[in-house]
């Protein structure tokens, strides 16, 4: 009897022990996350991961603010009002006040995922060949864009290099990191700048071959690839390629230019008509908010016209005197430091319709300034705007510059003047007549400054041409030879990696 009871209970103990050993009872999977080893095995998984890569572009450290506002602060377009204290260091070109290291971490995180998908997508069973072609095109475009934003920030641009201070490009990453072991072993060095540009162009050209149609401007599309190719080639001073891709892009999208009569209204729509590629900010949860959105950075005004007297954002970065002059805006009392320091009142405006986007703000945060209203809550809520990355007008200006640059293999001042006048006429100006040589070239750059002001171009345009930053009368000028032209690499990266060299001066 006793023995049989013993048997029963030892059996019970053993079965409960076996129950414990049952695999299912011991394992648990997370539900907000999925296992990295299987995440990219399905079509939905790849689509979601690509969405994740686009989503990183929205960061305030990327196109959410920094890549749009900081270049204008670093260059000669933006004056920092110190209404929230933001962008003051950047406008002063303080050492280290530049595009931040988050651009580095966020971009490489995006590039890593891009590489992982590029390595995995071919094997996804439930995706069609068309899906895969589209994925590859989008991924290569994204990888090129992220690498491009990195290399233009941290390295000199080809043809505008202070050789004694040049430490090369940025690490070019084309292979994904999947495990902790691989992460510890990855100690990349800076790839030569030219090689980084070559790879960007190579990725974009492949993307161009993969993508078809004009498509949604909020994701990678063929015109966007071509427009970016024209910009990248302009930056690396390959003018024939600049022209070739600009031609192709303009042919592909047809006439998208705003006219003088629609110009202001087009800036008050959710998706600007001229947009070829934009970062879309749509949902309330995507709103960057009152501290760092582009609207709050640029203006105190609450919403699209009619502008009220209520104060919305901070209006941290406003046009400098030299930009006001270029825009054709004259303040009451003249564009002097004295009148600039007090409440602004606009006395006169030139016929250039672009200056109609610049309005005096409110006094709620300090003296009233003329502010840029390109970002004014066009998506129906304060601080919620789509961010154009490429507009067609830029492509015209790319082409004009490529054809007007001295020594260009595609030098053609007549065609360049025609492109310049396409922009000028559509902006309410009278056509330029008989411009050639340096005056033509300088006018193209001037129109580019006005056209793309506060869209994140000015600093790169000056940098690629090796020009000094003329900050007077607000700030001290910064020579192109100054180390502050380049951003510092995140110091932790240097500390942990002997292969990586910090930029000169940091």
């Amino acid at each position, binding site marked *: 009897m006793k023995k049989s009871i*013993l048997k029963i*209970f030892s059996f019970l103990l053993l079965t409960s022990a076996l129950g414990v050993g049952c695999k299912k009872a*011991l394992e*648990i999977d*997370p539900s907000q996350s999925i296992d990295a080893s299987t995440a990219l095995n399905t079509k939905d998984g790849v689509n979601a991961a690509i969405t*994740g890569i686009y989503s990183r572009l929205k960061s305030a450290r990327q196109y959410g603010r920094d890549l749009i506002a900081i270049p204008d602060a670093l260059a000669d377009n933006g004056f920092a009002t110190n209404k929230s204290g933001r962008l003051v260091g950047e406008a002063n070109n303080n050492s280290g006040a530049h595009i931040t290291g988050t651009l580095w971490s966020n971009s490489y*995180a995006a590039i890593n995922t891009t590489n992982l998908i590029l390595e995995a997508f071919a094997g996804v069973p439930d995706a069609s060949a068309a899906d895969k072609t589209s994925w590859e095109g989008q991924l290569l475009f994204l990888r090129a864009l992220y690498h491009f934003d990195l290399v233009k920030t941290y390295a000199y641009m080809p043809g505008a290099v202070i050789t004694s201070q040049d430490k090369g490009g940025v*690490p070019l990453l084309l292979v994904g990191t999947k495990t902790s072991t691989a*992460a510890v072993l990855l100690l990349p060095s800076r790839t030569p700048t030219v090689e980084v540009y070559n790879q960007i162009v190579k990725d974009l050209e492949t993307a161009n071959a993969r993508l078809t149609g004009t498509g949604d401007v909020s994701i990678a599309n063929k015109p966007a690839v071509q427009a970016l190719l024209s910009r990248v080639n302009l930056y690396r001073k390959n003018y024939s390629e600049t022209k070739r891709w600009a031609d192709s892009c303009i042919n592909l999208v047809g006439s998208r230019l705003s006219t003088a009569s629609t110009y202001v209204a087009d800036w008050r729509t959710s998706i600007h008509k001229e947009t070829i590629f934009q970062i879309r900010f749509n949902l309330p949860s995507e709103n960057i908010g009152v501290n760092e959105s582009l609207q709050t950075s640029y203006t105190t005004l609450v919403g699209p016209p009619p502008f009220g007297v209520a104060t919305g954002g901070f209006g941290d970065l406003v046009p400098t005197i030299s930009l006001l002059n270029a825009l054709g805006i004259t303040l009451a009392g003249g564009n002097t430091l004295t009148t600039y320091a007090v409440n602004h009142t606009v006395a006169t405006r030139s016929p250039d319709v672009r200056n109609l986007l610049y309005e005096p703000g409110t006094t709620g945060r300090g003296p009233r300034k003329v502010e840029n209203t390109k970002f004014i809550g066009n998506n129906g809520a304060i601080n919620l705007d789509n961010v154009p990355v490429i507009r067609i007008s830029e492509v015209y200006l790319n082409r004009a510059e490529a054809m007007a640059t001295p020594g260009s293999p595609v030098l053609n001042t007549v065609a360049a003047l025609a492109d310049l006048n396409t922009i000028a006429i559509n902006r309410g100006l009278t056509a330029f007549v008989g411009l050639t040589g340096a005056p033509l070239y300088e006018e193209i750059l001037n129109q580019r400054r006005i056209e793309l002001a506060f869209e994140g171009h000015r600093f790169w345009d000056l940098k690629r041409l090796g020009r000094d930053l003329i900050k007077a009368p607000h700030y001290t000028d910064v020579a192109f030879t100054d180390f502050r032209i380049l951003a510092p690499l995140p110091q932790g*990266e240097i500390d942990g990696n002997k292969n990586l060299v910090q930029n000169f001066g940091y």
Partner: protein
Amino acid sequence: MLMLGVFALCTQMLAQNRTITGRITDAQNAGVPNASVTVKGTRVGTVTGTDGSFSLNVPANATTLVVSSVGFGNQEISIVNRTSIDLTLSAATSSLDEVVVTGYQTRRKRDEAGAISTVRATDIENQPSVSLDKALQGRAAGVLVQANNGIPGGAINVRIRGTGSFLAGTQPLYIVDGVRINTRNDANFTQTNPLSFLNPNDIESIDVLKDASASIYGASAANGVVIITTKKGRSGKTKFNFNTYIGQARAIQKLDVLNSQEYAQLRIEAYQNANITRTSLQNKNIVLGELRLRSDYTDEKSADSAIAALPSTDFQDAVFRNGTVQNYELSASGGTDRTTFRVSASYTTQEAILTKADFNRGTLKFDLTNKATDRLNINTSLNLSTANQKVPFATDGSFLGSPAFASSAIIPVNIIYNPDGTFNGVPPNNYIGILNQNVVSVNEFNSGYNRTNQMIGNFSLDYKLADWLSFKSFYGLDYRIVQGKRFTDPRTPDGFNRKGLGQVQSNWNTNFLTYQTLTYNQTFNTRHRVDALLGAEYKKENNEAISAVAEGFPTFQFTTLNTAATPISTGEFFTGFRTAGFFTSANYSFDGRFIINGILRYDYSSRFGEDNRWGLFPGVKVAWNIDREKFMEGQGVFSQLRLRASYGIAGNDQIGNFDALGLFGGGPVYNGNAGISFTQLANPELKWEEITTSNIGVDFALFKNRVTASVEVYSKYTRNALLNLPVQLTTGFARITSNVGELENKGVEVTLGGDILRSKNADGFKWNTNFVFAYNKNEVKKLYSGLQELPGDPSTRVGRTIGSIFTTRYAGVNPATGRPMFLDTLGNITYQTLAKDRVYIGDNQPEYTGGWNNNFTYKGFSLEAFLQYEYGRIASDGQVNFLSENLARFNQLQYIYDKRFTTPGQITSVPRQNVNGSESKGSGAGGGDRLLFKADYVRLKNVTLAYDLPASVYSRLKLNSARFYISGTNLYTFSDTYSYDVEFFGSATGIIPQAKLFTAGIQIGF
């Protein structure tokens, strides 16, 4: 195999030829269940039934029975010429005869070789704390209990023998009646104490496993194990116990801050010192302008009289209050010889001294034991609780609207009410100064609650396979739902522009646990006593939550989210983990002199990396009861003397549930699509941190137990401690977590007790004392890659304590200029400090901790006085720091005003005021170690005076007992600090400080 080994030990019973029956009762004549009754010097024994009765066949030559039970002494009784025994157990007199809970088992302390601290019900009864962890404070050696703040039911930091981890959790494992409790704080809007589900008066005993004893709990035991045993029913006539106390909570102290005239004077000086070219009148006009007054005075006299006319408001007086404390309990206990029960209900409220943080809780506890057959016992225990807490503006931090932060710092010229009785300074207007919110109105308008409903229950079957072998099948459930809401009123500055903000959360946690054990207990040839345990355990925990946020309410009366115009976000969350383990323990005692105990646990956790899911945790303990040796006979000094040693390994599994997995997480959204991002690299090697504990202990009692003492010396060495290793950002990640660090805690614990005054007369004057002392030294032994200091974190460096403070030394004020001075690397005076000037100042871990308890009894009176102390911690009180600035942005402490530098030649420690904060080419006046202080204290934690009615009186009233008591908590503190209260953990900025409590109560048994 092990199991077979256990069975192999089974031998056939010897013939027996006499039966003894009887009943074991406690002092109140209630049956004592589960008491062990054995024939002295043999393996023959049984345990009492639920009513305390037993029946035992004894050998013909047996002369004495030994009876023991949890909480009672070992008592022997002669059975010569007797067949029936009735024995009344008295509470344990010798600490070694008490029974301790060792994890899945109980054992007489004399037979246990581990370092286990025990706190009994009587030690913590009727303390006005809502959770049991606070009750441990200062009573168990080596158990450090620090309150985050004084929110009733707020978070508590408990550490057993120091901090054993850099990144993983440092709190012990809590087990209540066999159920491992989930101790995570899931409340979003206030702090909760996960242990406040249990009425502390329902606790019978708390046993703290501090050494190798904890190895039986394997991978979860590295921070020690706290085992709580609750009160159970006893057979006999049903007995009721009614207990109530009411009282008041008061602020320990308020901060002594300035009136408006003193404030204005500081601010004027701050302007004056920043710019010597301005005239005194100009500065006065500037300050008057800041205070929104006329600022164009042309003569000093008028400006002075404007300043003299400023009103002063004491905001601390306005927001602090006396809170009411109430507690009501009723319990009933009784049963038959087969079934016993205990049911207890309680209701407790504690109003906070700073609102809104009031706590109230109802509990219902039910315990039932049934002896289904002579061999089968069924036990069930159920604790239901609902705790409701009001939600403060913030639990800590420098929030403008937080009364705890702002009340001492608002510029005192602000007034609370307008002459017509309405609030002053409410939107669209605001207060003068940076702290521009009327905290009284904010506090009145905002609302919110946190409700924790919890059920902890267990069910077990005990089957006695033989007198020496029993099987237990145990099932436990810990179910908790935390629901919270916070409403930011549209009439407050934070809610004004968004027209009100509503946030809700719901979080539920289901924690299921089962274990099966075989327990073996036998004595051979009277000298060899063996007990053994073999078991398997499984635990499953799932945690889910939903939340929502919306803004734009029609009016302030609407607070439910469905009335809001704009949903901001919704959230859902799931996490969980699984653990399993096989364990065994074998204890052998030879002749009551030598004891050896081996423990082995093989543990699994789903939290660990694929390559390291299972781990082995051994432990061994030995003891030598020297007092049982022949050579000790006849000496009169030592009534007890024993040596113990143990060595064991346990694991720390308090890491994230999915830390080891490579993950793509949801969250990113773009272009109307939901995306995923690569959030975590796979780390298949991730595993538990391993803590090796070595312990040597000696227990002794002198002069017939007049003096008792326990001394423990230990080392706790952590290996495989988790650290974040930075990786190149180009990988897409910033760091990976790796098991690479090492650290050590070493210490000494002394528990000294004694009867200072004994009395032969039961009514005589008695004085009993118990002193607890613990010393712990923590040292970082190894970081990664040969680093001596964590990058960017000088508080963690090899050879120092975790939480070391590195900063520059403050050298006082330059008597000529009033500028703050510091010391540089060479010990010379410097004004502008550099990183290299930093030196080791101390650390934020207390070195010496403990308590001292005294019990005085005379006739029906008893007086308990309990002191608690901490020594060796360096702290910085963020609240005090804000009030000690030198630019008068906020109101300031009186001592800053009194001691500030004003005149050349003055020797003082407080620099001159300067609106720039720091002097030109100088470091900030609050920098260096100027505002650090030694957070040493001795606190009169509790004094209780009680009177028990004599039996002659209460029996006439048809009662079983009656007790009246008054009690005070946090009565007096010896410390050197300007803080609200020295007993805090963390930065103390904006916390609701602890309170002083006074209570009076009645306890009646009938």
